[in-house]
Structure formats: C-alpha cells, structure tokens
C-alpha cells in the first residue's frame, strides 16, 4: 500500500487522509485509497465500515472534514458538487436501484447520455441518429433491447440494476462507482452482472462495493477491505481472506 501512495503521477483517483464525522461517529477515519486508470477494484467490509460514505465523498454528496480527494491529475473533488463531479466523468450506481420509473427504458438512457445538461439545450433538443445508435448499443450491452419501450418502474429488480448500469455507461464516465450491484439478484443474474462489469472494465475504471464474496471472487480483481472507516487490508481475494485481521472482523464477533 505504501508504494501505491507514492505513485500519484499515474492515478485516476486518489484519497488521502479522508475523515468524515457524523454527530461524533467517525464514518471515515484517515482513509487512503489509490486507483490506477483502467483498474477495477472491489471494496468490501462489514456494515458501517464506511463503504457508502466513501462513495458519497467521491461523488460530492458529503464533504470530508479533512483529507484530499483527487481525480485525474489535479482535480480536487472536495470543492465540487454532484453535477460538476458527474460532468467530470464519475458515474454512480446506488445500492437501491434508482431509475426514472415513469420513463421508458429508452428515455432513461436518453436522459443519461453524455451531452449538454442545460435547460436551454434540453428544451429544444431532438433525438439525433448518433444518440439512437449509442442507446441501441448500450441496450445490447445491458441485455435490455427487447424491453426498450417498457417503463422503468415495470422492470424486475435485476433489470433495473442493469438499466442503472446502462445509464452509467451512457454518461461515458472514466470511473464507475457501483454500490452492491448484485444485491437481491438470482445466481444467474449475478453471473451475468460479473460478466457485464468485466466487459465495462475493458474501457473504464470501476469501483465495486459488494457484500457477496462469491461475486467478488468471480470478478477476480484487487480487493480493499474497509473497517471502521479505514483500510484494513488490501490485495487479492485470497490474500485478504487469509489476513487474520480480516478474519477477526468478519468472523470474530
């Protein structure tokens, strides 16, 4: 871990000494995390370890009390709000699937497509061929082509998760933050989701927060274990699952 922090030159995301306190509760405690461009990272940890708070800090929902959050070469994320950070190329999928329920699958993706977000543009915007092509391609990737005219609210739980991942792709982010993508999914859906994330990772960096160890194993990527707001262990899934501190946190109480 220590050698990674030195390598600021080639990092996509860099968290250093980040602390967040809610009413005396330390949600994040001197957290450090380094993500290389193109990397996929799994973040695991027991409930209350700070996984979601870490996402909140990166996406601008929560301001850290102390610490640095740097994106790319020198963009300080702690100074920006959610839309500005989304604009930089950081997309986020929530724990609970959140799609636009009254809109069709197609419109959900249309709204998420990278482009001008200002009212003066959207008021006059017409769907272009380029947009149609992009949406068609994303529909193929997330396996929802036949469902494009259904309302977001009518999809099954797993389909909503995929639609939300599709919306992330439509934003064309450099970094995807994915919070518990397989919660409530069937085994077959879980397997497909792992495949989908690996496919996405070919062009983008991904941070996956997950409880499901089998899924993390299936991803086969570097794992960061959080505990009480800081990093407990980091390495391959085999490495961290043999780490006595990790075993104690997960099994010891």
């Amino acid at each position, binding site marked *: 871990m220590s050698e990674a922090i030195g390598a600021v030159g080639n990092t996509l995301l860099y968290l250093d000494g980040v602390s967040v306190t809610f009413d005396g509760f330390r949600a994040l405690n001197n957290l450090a995390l380094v993500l290389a461009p193109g990397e996929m990272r799994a973040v695991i940890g027991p409930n209350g370890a700070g996984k979601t708070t870490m996402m909140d800090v990166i996406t601008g929902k929560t301001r850290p009390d102390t610490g640095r959050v740097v994106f790319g070469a020198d963009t300080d994320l702690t100074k920006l709000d959610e839309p500005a950070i989304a604009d930089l190329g950081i997309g986020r999928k929530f724990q609970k699937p*959140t799609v*636009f*329920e*009254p*809109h069709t699958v197609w419109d959900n993706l*249309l*709204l998420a497509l990278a482009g001008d977000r200002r009212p003066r543009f959207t*008021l006059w*915007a017409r769907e272009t061929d380029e947009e149609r092509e992009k949406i068609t391609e994303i529909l193929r990737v997330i396996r929802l082509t036949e469902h494009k005219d259904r309302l977001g609210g009518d999809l099954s739980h797993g389909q909503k998760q995929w639609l939300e991942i599709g919306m992330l792709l439509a934003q064309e982010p450099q970094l995807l933050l994915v919070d518990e993508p397989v919660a409530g999914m069937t085994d077959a859906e879980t397997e497909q989701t792992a495949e989908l994330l690996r496919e996405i990772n070919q062009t983008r960096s991904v941070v996956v927060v997950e409880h499901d160890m089998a899924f993390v194993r299936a991803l086969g990527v570097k794992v960061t274990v959080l505990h009480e707001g800081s990093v407990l262990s980091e390495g391959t899934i085999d490495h961290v699952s043999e780490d006595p501190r990790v075993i104690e946190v997960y099994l010891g109480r």
Partner: protein
Amino acid sequence: MKVYAGRSGWIALAAILGFAALLGVLNLATAPTSSVHVPTYIVSLFGKYLTFAMLALAVDLVWGFAGILSLGHAAFFALGGYAMGMYLMRQIGARGVYANPTLPDFMVFLNWKELPWYWEGFNVFPFAMLMAMVVPGVLAFVFGYFTFRSRVSGVYLSIITQALTYALLLAFFRNDMGFGGNNGLTDFKDILGIPLQLDGTRVGLLIITAICLCIQLLVCRFIVLSRFGKVLIAVRDTETRTRFIGYRPEQYKLFVWTVSAIMAGVGGALYVPQVGIINPGEFAPANSIEAVIWVAVGGRGTLVGAILGAVLVNVGKTVFTGVLPELWLFALGGLFIFVTLFMPQGIMGLFAKRVRRRGEPELPAAEESAAREITG
C-alpha cells in the same frame, strides 16, 4: 401515450375555443327574449372561469411535473391582476368622482398630490400588459432562485409560498402602498378606449381569454413533452439521481416556476376586466389552496385536467353558493378529501383507465406523491 401527451390536449383546445365562440354568438346574435340567448353576465362568468383555468394550469405545471406544491400561486395571479387594474384606473381619467385627470380617486381621497413613480407608464396598454407578466415573473425568479438553490422542497417550500402570498396580502391592504388599500382598484370604465360594459367587449374578452388559455396549454405541452420535460419529471420523482447524472435540478425548477408565475399573471390580468375589481383579497392563502384543489380534482400532471377541474369546481361553486352559501367551504373540503381518497388521479384518471383498457400504457406516477405531499 401519457395522458398529458395524448389527444386530450387537442380536444381541450377545440372545446375551449368552440365553447367560447358559441357563448359569444348566443350572446350577440340572438334577441334578449330568445330562449337560447346567453346573458352577458354568463359570458363574463365563463371568462372568469377560464382565467382560473390559467391559474390551475400554472399550478399543474409546477406541481404535476416538477413536484413543487405551491400554496401561493394566487399571488402571481393577483399581481397580474393589479397590473391590469392600474391600467384600467388610468383609463378612467377625469371621469372619476373627484375628476382628477391623472390621480385615481383613492389617491385624491388620501390627499396625494402626485402619482407615485411606480404608477408611471401604466396608462400605456402594452407596458401594463408587459408588467402583468414581468412583475410575477421577476418575483418568482428571485424567490425561486434562492429557495431552489438552497434545496428547499416539499412541505417547507409549500409553507414559504404560503407566507409569500400572505405577506403580499398584508402589504396590499395598506393604504400607503398606493394600490387602493382594502378597497383595491375598481369602477373601471374603458379598456383601450372601448367601454367595458358593452356586450361586445365582454364577448371579446372571453374570446381573448380562451385564445390565451389555448396558447398556454400549447406552451405547457411543448415544455413537458420536450427532453426538458422528461428531465423535469425525473427531478420530480428522483431528484438526487438526476443530480448524480449531471443535471442541475434547481435550473429546471427555476425555469418552470418562472414560466408558471407568468402564466398565472396573464390569468390575473384577464380576470380583472371581466370581474370589474381587484383587491387584496385575491392574495388570500385560501385562493391558492383552492387552485390546488382544482388541479387535484381534474388530475395532477395532466394539464387538461387542471383546466377541467378549474371550470367544473367553479361552476359548482357558483351554483352551490347560490343555493347554500354557508356550506360551500364544507363541500369544497369534502370534495378534496373524496378526490384524494377515491380518485387519486382526478377526473382525467377516469379517462385514463378507459384508455388503458384499450391496451395503452398508463399515467405517470405523480398521484402517489401528490397524496403524500398533502397528507404528510
């Protein structure tokens, strides 16, 4: 097709224009003794209903599509009304009781020697009409800029809008504000030099009101059917999500909020010459709440439903207050409870159910949050 996107809009346009034209013909082209003659007071009564429909449409645009439950929209309506009232006062000229060529009667009565600066220009019709839109629009913009930027929403926002209209009510009651105090502005004579009492003027005002209402309906449809409208509905239901996708909800809310206030202002400006008076009572919080009930009855988030609700509830009010005036507020309250409990999608929801049986998809999910906002 969604209810607000379907044919209902075109049917409504035809119905509004057709009905207004029919009333006009039956008023002007038939003898007063004829059995099909429509008396002039009915013409103006429907003109008034259509101005209320504009207020309802304005409320529906922000409540139905942006989730902003305004309990102060009548303030924008009344401000538009005052702009028209000021023009009509200046039109009286020297024919007032005190025969002062520039000062309206109430100013002479208060012993004022000259016209306050903010009354300048209101003798010019286009300027007054511009102000009927600019004043509500600017107030809404400033109000919305601060509230939406601070992410004030839900019940808190509703309470602030209520406070806004109440503050204006108190202000306009004061004589030294220069708007006629509690008597307001009245005794109008002419509009554009044409006597207001003529039947033809009344019919003309009704037709103009109908046309303006249709234009507003078209503008609303354009907004909600555009990509902007899709973002707006997304903001209504899942505001945080839109923010993480990179939209700024406050910009979207501010735009519709301002447009909505301007629409209400136009409604108010057309209300005053047809009713013949504007006074601070129009700022009463109850008026704004009534407008919300019209929308709920017609169907929130349907546009046409707002117009339908405004007209039907006000026809009901006219009939009911004629027969049992003291019971009207109970009837209105009962109607609201009934609609909320048993017809959450309003009258348009009944139509939508029939449409759905023919195999088309359903309404947007506005009505659940509607019930929640009101009860919670």
